[in-house]
């Protein structure tokens, strides 16, 4: 049975699979099969398989697609957008898929385009991913030349077009409505929701935004079926996922593992445990905008709901390890600086709150903090909570702060009482 659908073509050498090699490995069979299915059936299949968005929010992909209006005659122009912005601190998964197996992503995009009736698709890639952009551009050319997108293949009235859009920067471009504004050539500021993009997205047309890894799940899901997909997971969620570990571990890296794999297995077996005899203080399960978890959570299965119940989010599934020799206050300061810099400036708790948070954390780190500062930090995280801002950047920024204040409270207190950072 196929157990590593996302990385089965990715070998030890550092090259990208070209179209010929991809096809020799059963490539584009999912696309050809999807074309023989009605969009409704395809959406139903993906929904039943339980594929959840890998961009961070974990929304059921088929369900997300089902909000796109069904009447194609009434709204013939629709868009698919692949979110390849990958700028979340600690996240390095989409890069691998794009650099090494670009046709897997293109095939996934074609399948999604069929499901929602899109005839134009964009890959929105961050500007720093030079190599991935070149590999993808080349792959798009190969797919076009091979006639995979033509009406003869698809039976559609128009050819499917796939364009690569290189971003000019900013983390906020990854937020799906800010991304749409960037594609429209505007400043990347999130849009008020509703309406959601599925109803009114790019230039007001029905639009679906999906993450790279989400789309890469589709080809094999279509050829192997929903039951196969579900049973790939070890726990509640179906499928596999790219899980990664960075920080002071022996073998930082990225592995395709079943959903539901326990954290301990990823950190200890795959990443080889902490290096230099260090012990683990905590970890961010899925990027800089997820709550810290502690050693007591090592046996947690990496499933969306399980991590949610433990008080964090699976997020992007790339774990950042905090070791005993690294200052938690310093790490939270580093993350808050990032979010403060990346705020688009629209909402007060984010635009004004985050620089203030940075100021307080810097003061504590310098040994000039007071106990009242901790209360002030807590208040800021409440102001940045979901519902108080236009997008999830500020709530995400609050997550590592609020959890650090609980898990590492003693470290904050030690900085304040000792009037210095104990780690220096």
């Amino acid at each position, binding site marked *: 049975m196929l157990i590593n659908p996302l990385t089965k073509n990715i070998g030890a050498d550092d090259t990208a699979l070209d179209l010929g090699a991809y096809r020799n490995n059963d490539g584009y069979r999912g696309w050809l099969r999807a074309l023989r299915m009605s969009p409704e059936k395809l959406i139903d299949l993906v929904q039943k398989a339980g594929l959840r968005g890998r961009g961070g929010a974990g929304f059921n992909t088929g369900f997300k697609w089902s909000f796109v209006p069904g009447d194609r005659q009434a709204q013939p122009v629709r868009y698919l957008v692949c979110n390849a912005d990958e700028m979340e*601190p600690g996240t390095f998964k989409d890069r691998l898929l794009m650099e090494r197996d670009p046709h897997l992503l293109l095939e996934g995009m074609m399948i999604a385009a069929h499901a929602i009736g899109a005839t134009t698709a964009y890959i929105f890639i961050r500007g*720093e991913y030079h190599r991935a952009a070149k590999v993808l551009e080349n792959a798009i050319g190969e797919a076009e030349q091979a006639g995979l997108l033509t009406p003869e293949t698809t039976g559609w009235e128009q050819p499917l077009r796939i364009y690569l*859009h290189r971003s*000019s920067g900013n983390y906020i471009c990854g937020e799906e409505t800010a991304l749409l504004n960037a594609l429209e050539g505007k*400043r*990347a500021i999130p849009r008020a929701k509703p309406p959601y993009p599925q109803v009114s997205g790019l230039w007001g047309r029905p639009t679906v935004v999906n993450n790279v890894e989400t789309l890469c799940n589709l080809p094999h899901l279509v050829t192997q079926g929903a039951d196969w997909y579900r049973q790939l997971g070890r726990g509640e969620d179906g499928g596999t996922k790219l899980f990664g570990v960075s920080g002071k571990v022996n073998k*930082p890296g990225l592995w395709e593992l079943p959903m539901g794999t326990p954290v301990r297995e990823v950190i200890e077996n795959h990443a080889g445990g902490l290096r230099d005899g260090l012990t683990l203080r905590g970890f961010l399960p899925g990027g800089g905008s997820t709550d810290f978890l502690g050693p007591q959570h090592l046996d947690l299965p990496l499933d969306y709901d399980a991590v949610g119940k433990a008080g964090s989010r699976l997020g992007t599934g790339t774990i*950042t390890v905090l070791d005993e020799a690294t200052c938690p206050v*310093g790490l939270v300061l580093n993350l808050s600086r990032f979010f403060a*810099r990346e705020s688009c400036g629209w909402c007060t708790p984010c635009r004004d709150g985050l620089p203030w948070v940075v100021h307080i954390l810097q003061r504590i780190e310098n040994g000039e903090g007071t106990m009242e500062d901790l209360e002030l930090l807590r208040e800021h995280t409440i102001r940045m909570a979901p519902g108080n801002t236009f997008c999830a950047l500020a709530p995400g920024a609050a997550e590592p702060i609020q959890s650090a204040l609980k898990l590492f409270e003693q470290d904050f207190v030690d900085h304040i009482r000792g009037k210095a950072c104990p780690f220096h």
Partner: protein
Amino acid sequence: MKERPEKVPQRIPAHQEGTAPQLSAEEMRAIDEERSHYESDAAAGLEALRIVQRERGWISDDSLRAVSAYLGIAEAELEGLATYYQLLFRQPVGPEVIQLCKSSSCWILGCDRLQTTLEKALGIHPGETSADGIFTLLENPCLGACDRAPVLLMNEELHSHLTEEKLQALLAEKRQRHADQSAD
């Protein structure tokens, strides 16, 4: 806070008649190509700025005006984009743009020390260009290579598992290359 040069770009006096800045044929071709990818022509403005920067290294007032004239998009609109997006430069940069990752995993593995090394070696802070005009130093969010931390981008090249020695060697190599080029 955007890591941008502190100086506000100097306003150049308005252009005299007949000296309207021009886009090259290649720039126009690339802009037209991008324009054909979008439902609305307005989307090409951002792309045009990226293209002009790719060709000229940065976006001068002249370049902004040229794009404005070519696409019929107001200069102020384009300025709004150029000052919003981090990878668009409104000041000249050196031929070697260093984007040092300052995010979490690289921080845990010592990017602050690397920054000090770079600042000393180049005599500049982030947002500035070295006196020899070769290097521009920028702080960058996570470069998506956290398993190889600490990392930096030198133009399009990713350098990973950095140490101070590796960094010094890299700077020396680039300096040498530029010295050789100017000797030719």
